[in-house]
């Protein structure tokens, strides 16, 4: 798709429920009005046939004012921070009315903060040219992340709340069982499980529009479930279990789905137009899901191998001293946050913990297992807390949405829900992933070094009373958080300064 690189004085978005008449009449009125005033204008229409003349972040950035004339959602949040007027579409159906709206928009005070996507948009043609590929990828990714974020918050907080009854309160055989807490955990778990499919689906949607949602969701589900293999036969088996590859797999699946749809559209473009309905409801979903599903299952096959390889690797580090072991645990936990690498560290931790609890207090096995578990928990708690620290200290470098998400991450971090950091990481895998790994590693190393023992497999700070050396443990986590947080703020400041230089030049 060739992107329109020209910029305009006025940008506008129009839409109406039917999407046939008023959307386009308002566009005409706005164009007549702008022409009469000697201004250039681009009008994005949200009609029955979809979005046409879509505005780019660079155009939003360059525009002097925005007019929204719509009776439906036209994603006006993109225009935050611009002088803008918003009216119903019927208030924009004559040239005079449209001229008045343009005047009001030009005189309006900008409200809110420019979204990071718009701020980051290249301000002159040369930059746009250079950044096109990188920027489009970023745009697709952001579409996925912003849809995913709310699932993380809803699921994460509900899960965290269930821990208030005790970390095994969902388990009907446990002493702290509570049926309400179990329900909270179930609901929260389902919302969290939707996170990766939603990420994948909306990356796909950004690339291939609505048809891409189907393969996107399916790819995301495969990313979390992996290729199911029967434990008995070792063969692919719909009743077996698989190892997923977490959010990294979701990103791969999202892009794959989007581009498969674009490919199919090209391939089937020769088909007669009266078969369009058939394409939309039959051919696209069927073919794209088949292709994407096969590819995803294919690449998720080796995940189990990575997973067991990592677990063996970790166990082999027993005797290598606190620094190497802590570094390995920290890096693994923060690497893919729920993927095979993170899971390997966590599962190894719980396996060692089970051995430890069987061996009993005072034995070497007990000390090693509980110490290992404390290191894993510390590494899992740090990433969300890093984001909380960063959005508080570096408030102006974050969008409002990120800021609020960072605050919620305080709850998620304190309850060992690492997933809260995923949206931040997805936006900039480099350098955020190494920053998280660094913070987590510091916390793990110190935890091992100070001999903290944690006999609980989950629960974050809620299990502090049973942690032996709890004070030092919290200190280790805080040190990891502050170091990672400072690095994260430094990165965001660099990014912010770069974007603002662009703004001044514009």
């Amino acid at each position, binding site marked *: 798709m060739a992107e329109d690189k020209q910029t305009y004085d006025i940008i506008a978005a129009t839409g109406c429920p039917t999407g046939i008449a008023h959307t*386009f009449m308002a566009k*005409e009125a706005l164009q007549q009005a702008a022409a009469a005033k000697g201004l250039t204008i681009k009008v994005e229409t949200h009609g029955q046939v979809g979005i046409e003349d879509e505005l780019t972040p660079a155009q939003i950035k360059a525009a002097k004012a925005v007019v929204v004339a719509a009776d439906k959602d036209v994603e006006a949040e993109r225009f935050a921070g611009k002088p803008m007027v918003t009216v119903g579409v019927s208030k924009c*159906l004559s040239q005079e009315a449209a001229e008045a709206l343009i005047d009001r928009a030009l005189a309006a005070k900008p409200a809110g903060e420019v979204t990071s996507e718009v701020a980051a948009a290249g301000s002159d043609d040369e930059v746009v040219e250079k950044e096109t590929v990188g920027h489009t990828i970023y745009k697709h990714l952001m579409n996925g992340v912003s849809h995913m974020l709310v699932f993380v918050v809803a699921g994460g907080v509900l899960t965290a709340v269930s821990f208030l009854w005790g970390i095994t309160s969902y388990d009907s055989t446990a002493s702290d069982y509570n049926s309400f807490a179990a329900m909270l955990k179930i609901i929260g778990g389902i919302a969290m499980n939707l996170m990766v499919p939603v990420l994948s689906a909306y990356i796909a949607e950004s690339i291939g529009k609505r048809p891409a949602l189907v393969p996107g969701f399916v790819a995301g589900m495969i990313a979390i479930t992996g290729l199911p293999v029967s434990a008995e036969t070792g063969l692919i088996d719909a009743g077996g279990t698989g190892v997923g590859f977490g959010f990294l797999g979701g990103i791969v699946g999202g892009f794959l789905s989007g581009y498969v749809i674009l490919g199919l559209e090209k391939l089937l473009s020769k088909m007669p*137009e*009266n078969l369009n309905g058939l394409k939309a409801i039959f051919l696209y979903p069927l073919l794209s899901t088949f292709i994407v599903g096969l590819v995803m299952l294919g690449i998720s096959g080796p995940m189990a191998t990575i997973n067991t390889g990592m677990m063996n690797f970790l166990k082999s580090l027993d005797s290598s001293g606190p620094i190497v072991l802590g570094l390995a645990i920290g890096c693994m936990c923060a690497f893919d946050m729920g993927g095979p690498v993170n899971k390997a560290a966590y599962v190894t931790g719980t396996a060692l913990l089970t051995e430890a609890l069987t061996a009993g207090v005072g034995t070497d096995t007990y000390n090693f297992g509980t110490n290992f578990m404390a290191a894993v928990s510390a590494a899992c708690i740090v990433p969300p807390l890093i984001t909380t620290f960063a959005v508080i200290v570096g408030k102006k470098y974050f969008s409002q949405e990120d800021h609020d998400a960072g605050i919620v991450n305080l709850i998620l971090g304190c309850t060992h829900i690492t997933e809260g950091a995923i949206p931040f990481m997805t936006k900039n895998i480099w350098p955020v992933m190494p920053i998280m790994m660094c913070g987590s590693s510091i916390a793990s190393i110190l935890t091992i070094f100070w001999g903290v023992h944690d006999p609980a497999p989950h629960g974050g700070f809620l299990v502090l009373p049973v942690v032996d050396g709890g004070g030092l443990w919290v200190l280790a986590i805080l040190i990891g958080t502050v170091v990672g947080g400072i690095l994260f703020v430094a990165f965001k400041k660099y990014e912010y300064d770069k974007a603002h230089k662009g703004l001044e030049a514009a």
Partner: protein
Amino acid sequence: MSDFVSASNVFLDNPATSCDEALKFLSDKAVELGISSDAAAVLEAFKAREEEGSTGMMGGFAIPHAKSKAIDKAAVEVVKFSGDVDWTTMDEKPVKVAIALLIPDTEAGTTHLKLLSKVAVMLMHADFCKAVLASEDPAQIAQTINDGLDK
């Protein structure tokens, strides 16, 4: 040269005096013209759209539209009224001409949906409105719209 609108879709001297009567007439004609086989469903779709907000415009024009599964193909109907029709309009003047859009509720036929949108946009042009108000010849009115589609 487009022939999207034919003279048989243009009706003159209609005696309707209310919006409901006009919509009823348009729905019945839609069945006669083979655009739909269910007049009641088309009427309901027209009325549903009016309830969301009147389609009365300025200068004596209204642009009612119906989107329904009962509509088999995208089409335009034009009706000129013999008297004034009571219709909520933006300039509070009565309606003299209704240009109705009939929209099938499927994803297919993007091309035809775009033609309907172009008809709507024509109403924003004073020349077009004048030509339709002045003419009493169905073929000529149909031609005026078709010419606009070619632009």
